[in-house]
């Protein structure tokens, strides 16, 4: 109890306690924990979001993604751990002024029009009024800006929520499922917008269930299960090197040849085929090697693990082996 109080005090002090660098990373989190009674929503989370990268935050429902985002904007106090957002404590006005956030669903005033909602937020944040029109156009809502928020479809609300997040031209964007409810064109437009923001040097922390989206958009990905970060890396790193499926005869000679070329640990037999872990640029040498040994190649097919495969495998690992580590 005492330790958690001390951590809370540390987290709530106005000067962030993490080591200073000349230009701090937009998000640095060490051992961030949030407990609700006996339930641990986030347990010892450590991650860094770098400047100019789109960071994908993946996890199943209830994994702690939204709680983490809430802590990063100061809506929820951490029970323990340290966090620094744009060089300041989460929730400090100095950091919030440079953050655009859409946490959970877009929450705006139903009786106000889209434009009035943004005008209100612009007034509060000290943003020039002309910026309202710019962000409305950026998310494709300029034509419906005069309609009241309550009349908007889910997709339009989502667009307006993203527009609100963009209003301050922020250095860091925290987006929780930003393409939720958008039509396919809207999804494509939103993805282009988010990727462009990353390319412009902004940091984007994107929470999403859509694995394909994360695969397309994100420079790095963190996967969270039961409040803990279980893996982190680039999409390529998470997917691994992939492999080659080979149907060849005679199979035993092909296997011997492949083991000689790649090593035993990279070759497995799958029914009447061989599977070799290999980078894409190794495929040509593999086929050449087997052909030169007089082996008939019936099929050589490149196989890559998708992020979905990785995610499902991690999920299976957590479900199978994670019980002892269950944070609740």
């Amino acid at each position, binding site marked *: 109890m005492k330790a958690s109080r001390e951590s809370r005090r540390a987290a709530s002090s106005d000067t962030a306690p993490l080591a200073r660098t000349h230009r701090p990373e937009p998000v640095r989190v060490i051992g961030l924990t949030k407990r609700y009674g006996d339930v641990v929503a986030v347990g010892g989370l450590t991650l860094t979001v770098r400047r100019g990268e789109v960071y994908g935050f993946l996890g199943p429902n209830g994994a702690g993604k939204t709680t983490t985002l*809430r802590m990063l*904007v*100061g*809506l*929820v*106090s951490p029970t323990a751990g340290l966090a620094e957002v744009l060089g300041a404590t989460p*929730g*400090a*006005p100095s950091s*919030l*002024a440079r*953050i655009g*956030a859409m*946490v*959970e*669903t877009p*929450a*705006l*005033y*139903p*009786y*106000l029009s889209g434009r*009035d909602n943004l*005008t*209100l*937020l612009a*007034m*509060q*944040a*000290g943003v020039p009024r002309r910026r309202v029109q710019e962000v409305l156009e950026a998310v494709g809502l300029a034509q419906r800006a005069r309609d009241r928020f309550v009349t908007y479809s889910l997709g339009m609300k989502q667009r307006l929520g993203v527009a*609100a997040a963009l209003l*301050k031209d922020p250095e860091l964007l925290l987006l929780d499922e930003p393409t939720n409810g958008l039509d396919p064109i809207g999804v494509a437009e939103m993805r282009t917008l988010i990727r462009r923001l990353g390319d412009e040097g902004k940091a984007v922390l994107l929470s999403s269930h859509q694995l394909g989206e994360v695969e397309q958009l994100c420079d790095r990905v963190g996967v969270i299960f039961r409040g803990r970060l279980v893996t982190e890396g680039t999409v390529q790193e998470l997917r691994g090197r992939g492999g080659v499926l080979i149907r060849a005869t005679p199979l035993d000679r092909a296997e011997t040849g492949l083991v000689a070329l790649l090593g035993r640990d990279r070759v497995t037999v799958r029914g009447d085929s061989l599977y070799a872990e290999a980078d894409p640029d190794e495929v040509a040498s593999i086929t050449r090697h087997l052909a030169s040994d007089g082996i008939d190649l019936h099929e050589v097919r490149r196989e890559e693990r998708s992020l979905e495969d990785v995610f499902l495998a991690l999920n299976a690992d957590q479900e199978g082996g994670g019980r002892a580590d269950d944070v609740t």
Partner: protein
Amino acid sequence: MMLRSYRSELYKLRKRPATWVVFGVWLVLMLVFTYLFPYLSYRSGKSGADAIKLPNLLPAALPTQGLLGYAVWGGSLIVVLGALTLGSEYGWGTLKTMLSNGPGRLTVFCAQVAAMFTSLAGLVVVAFVCSALASVVIAASTGASIAGPAAFALALSMAVAWLILCMWCLFGVVLAIVIRGTALSVGLGLVWVLAVENIIRATASSVPVIAGIEKALPGVNAGSLVAALGTPAAGSGGDGVAAVVGGGQAAIVVALYLLLFGAVGALLLRRRDVL
């Protein structure tokens, strides 16, 4: 930063239909209960101790008659306004939007309170203008004097009206923050103002312990403050105007409630998680 937040909160209140509905209902009820019904009662020629006297309805009595509805039923509507304003922020989830948009929590809270107090000041001014017009109409229709009240008395009356409304507004705000929603906070606020305080008042005369509690109630002190300015109570007693405590004590207690509600609201909003 505070000024920006204050302007944005005023913008929200101004654009919100519920604000205008509450203010409109408030003005209509005020005119009906403070001038129309008493005037009809006077015209009916009823005599007795609780009979309405014409001078109470004339412009000269504006500082006292104009205050009649503030203590209880006027206050109850303003409790609704306070609970609606903050409770809706929780219900719509807009509190998290406002809090994550930039200024600190205390800045947002103070701006919201300041904007509500400003709008209540406007309401008091409009209410006294309407009361003045009603009293002039009554004076003209009865051939009585249309001479106005003393400026100081009028200003003091308006200040008291504003103080009482601000207290009830913050009561609604605190309920909304404690409950984190609208419906229950509105319901509890109305039950407190219209039922609980009345029951305590009714039993206070027979139970000494309750008489002590009665003297500490916000509505009782608001009613005593209004009574201290010379406002005559309506015959039904439903307006809550009664000199249960002295005017000075009532003013201090109302001001203390204002500070207490403000402090509790600020503390809870600052410390609690916003989910």
